[in-house]
């Protein structure tokens, strides 16, 4: 009796905190369109696949927008039957010393043939209505390029090709403009310097004038009909695990484990010089042939006569060149965005706060390969958790700039790197 009475009283004195109501503020999320590159497409683990697409940061942002009147967000998803899309890397496990065992997933791909250039794969088409315009590989330098997505013998971008009807020479900027968003995100520019960084400084960096012209052009098109939106900076390409996992110090330890001796690493710099590597030189994840002997018996990278190739190393001077280009491009992004009154998400400084490790909601995250939690198995693109955090940074800026009140994502509900 007393217990029943008590239970009644307990029930009558439950706390009642009002849950905030999601609100769109001054923005209109009826048609949100995401313009961008591989990061926008949801690229992860070296490929585009259905699960990764479902977890793209624009899809996550759209999910929150839906709580405040946002419309449907259609993505160019690979079908369930072709769920592995372009194929990607899977982590099968780690050795006792922590070396990852990576295996490519090559079943159930969305590859449907080979392009007219006889080398570019053709992917399953998706030419219908689309809200996620993320095209892996695209640079700001490419957005006004006619035929960029046209299957032709000189080469093309197959990720853009799959979004266009056959024989369409449309530019990416046109394609973006025709999407007619009420709200857009535009995160471009990474590939204008990333290719240089991941190729050890052998690929080119987009000239500033071209970057300014093209970025300004696409932003003008996106805002022409009064759409509101958000853009973002290029993160520091030199902090990615692709360039920071095989550090010179780690390589020396590896060599010592192999040979029992303290040996120097030799590299060929961008200037053609062969010299001893220092901790300021960044060896790429692809440079895995260290200490393998050549025909003359010289161990790779351990003898000045057989140094690590220029493309295996972003040397100190090249690091400076890449970093400076990122800063120049970000200044252009800021200038163009200001002129269009579009707010900028500071993805540059945000990523840098994780260089030394940082705890977010009880999660200790850093920019390390696999164990860091942010970067996927390709060492360049993000994990589901990394994309959720990116979405949160966009949502914060959208909330602040448009007086909106969209809830953030609980990042603990999104995985880091997982063993599959």
């Amino acid at each position: 009796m007393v217990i029943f009475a008590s239970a009644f009283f307990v029930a009558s004195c439950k706390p009642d905190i009002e849950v905030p109501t999601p609100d769109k503020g001054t923005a209109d999320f009826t048609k949100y369109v995401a313009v961008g590159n591989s990061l926008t497409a949801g690229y992860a683990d070296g490929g585009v696949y259905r699960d990764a697409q479902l977890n793209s940061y624009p899809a996550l942002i759209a999910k929150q927008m839906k709580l405040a009147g946002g419309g449907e967000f259609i993505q160019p998803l690979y079908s369930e039957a072709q769920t592995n899309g372009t194929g990607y890397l899977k982590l099968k496990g780690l050795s006792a010393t922590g070396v990852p065992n990576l295996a490519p997933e090559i079943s159930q791909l969305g590859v449907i043939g080979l392009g007219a250039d006889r080398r570019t794969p053709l992917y399953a088409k998706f030419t219908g209505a689309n809200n996620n315009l993320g095209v892996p590989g695209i640079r700001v330098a490419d957005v006004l390029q006619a035929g960029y997505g046209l299957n032709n013998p000189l080469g093309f971008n197959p990720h853009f090709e799959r979004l266009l009807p056959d024989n369409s020479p449309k530019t990416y900027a046109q394609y973006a403009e025709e999407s007619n968003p009420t709200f857009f995100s535009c995160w471009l520019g990474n590939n204008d310097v990333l290719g240089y960084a991941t190729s050890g400084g052998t690929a080119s960096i987009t000239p500033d004038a071209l970057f300014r012209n093209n970025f300004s052009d696409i932003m003008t098109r996106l805002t022409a009909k009064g759409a509101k939106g958000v853009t973002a900076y290029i993160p520091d390409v030199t902090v990615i695990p692709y360039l920071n996992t095989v550090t010179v110090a780690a390589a020396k330890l590896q060599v010592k484990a192999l040979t029992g001796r303290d040996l120097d690493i030799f590299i060929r710099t961008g200037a053609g010089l062969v010299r001893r590597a220092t901790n300021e030189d960044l060896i790429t994840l692809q440079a895995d042939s260290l200490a393998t002997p050549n025909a003359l018996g010289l161990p790779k990278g351990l003898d000045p006569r057989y140094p690590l190739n220029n493309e295996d190393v972003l040397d100190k001077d090249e690091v400076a060149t890449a970093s400076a280009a990122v800063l120049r491009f970000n200044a252009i992004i800021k200038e163009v965005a200001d002129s269009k009154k579009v707010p900028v998400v500071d993805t540059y400084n945000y990523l840098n706060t994780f260089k030394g490790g940082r705890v977010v909601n009880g999660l200790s995250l850093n920019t390390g390969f696999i164990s860091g939690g942010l970067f996927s198995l390709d060492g360049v693109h993000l994990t589901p958790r990394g994309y959720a955090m990116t979405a949160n940074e966009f949502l914060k800026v959208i909330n602040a700039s448009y007086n909106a009140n969209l809830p953030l994502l609980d990042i603990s509900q999104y995985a880091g790197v997982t063993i599959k």
Partner: protein
Amino acid sequence: MNIKKISLILLCLCPFLAQGQGYQVALQGAKQLGMGHTGAAMASDASTLFFNPGATAMVKGNSASVNFSPIFSNTEYVDNATFSAARTDNPVGTPFSVYAAFGSSDSSKFISRFKFGIAVYTPFGSGVKWGESWIGRAALSSISLSSIFVQPTVSFKITDKLSFGIGFVYVRGSVNLQRSILFPSLASVGGEGKVELDGKANNFGFNAGLFFKPSEKFSIGVSYRSKVTASVSNGSATFSNIPAIFASRFPAGGTTNFSANLPLPAVLNVGVSFSPNKKLTISAEMNHIGWSAYDSLIFDYTDANFADTKSARKYQDIVVLRLGGQYMVTDALAARLGFYYGNTPVTNGHVTPETPDSDRMGYTAGLGYKIGKMDIDFAVAFINTEKRKDTNSETQLNGTFQTKAFVPSISLGYSF
């Protein structure tokens, strides 16, 4: 009194949730609870051993009483960032107290000025269970904190109007704290680790008081219970479900010992009681609680490779104001009402899921009935805390907490 039997009972009882500010539990007698938990200025019965040992000497005859006050509480949390809500699934708290006071009835002898007593009570504790799926699980999934104070006491009537008492306090406490461990990678969502910290502590203190009753209508009481530091010296920390790649970040074998100090703060009570006529008593009281003793929570781990943690708590001293009234409906039946208000010891930036505290108000009511030498007292308390919005400076947990609680209380007393 069979001490062994009592200690067996104690072992069976669950821990309880904080029902005073911080992890203090102000539920030590149904008579007092009905009157807003005022008691420093009333020489009611053996429960004075807790409220004011100085007043025990003024209690007529010998008396013993037991009290039990189950706590039904709920805390809700709404996250400001994700708008997600969580609610505690707290176990029913079980604070209790047992009192006995006796003395010589031969008023011609000096010894009759003394009263001797023993009190067992639970003035600090906490039992909060958030579970392992809420957003703040890395800060806390559950905590259970309990303490038992055992207080042998002597109280002395200096004059017919003034008395003094002092008790030696032995404290036995235990703590069990559980948190989820989130891994940056290599764990599926839900495949999280867990740490359980479990420890016991002993320590000593005192409880002393002065009671002054210049007239039949008026009395004043002052009591002071010293701070006791619950020092856990050999607690066990157990880490489970740790992926191999992160094992090196945790103690070898997943276990280590720890030490930690949790202050159970000093309490100063000043109360006045006024009876304008035989039927009515009004009592007012102030408690000053030295919560500033809780500056930080440090876990010092034995495993040298596992970093110690230091979390700021930065509590502040607080004052609780209490007001209560009793009306004798008949000679045997008493009706009581009370109210109290206390500010919170938890400063901004330091609200935690273990003590999601804020300023609170308590509304109490009670009935007492005398049958011969028996006293039966009932009381109920409704406790309502203000909504508290905060961002914790350590965990960055950013949201709004609110706690409500309902406490029925029963005391049985016997005078002889």
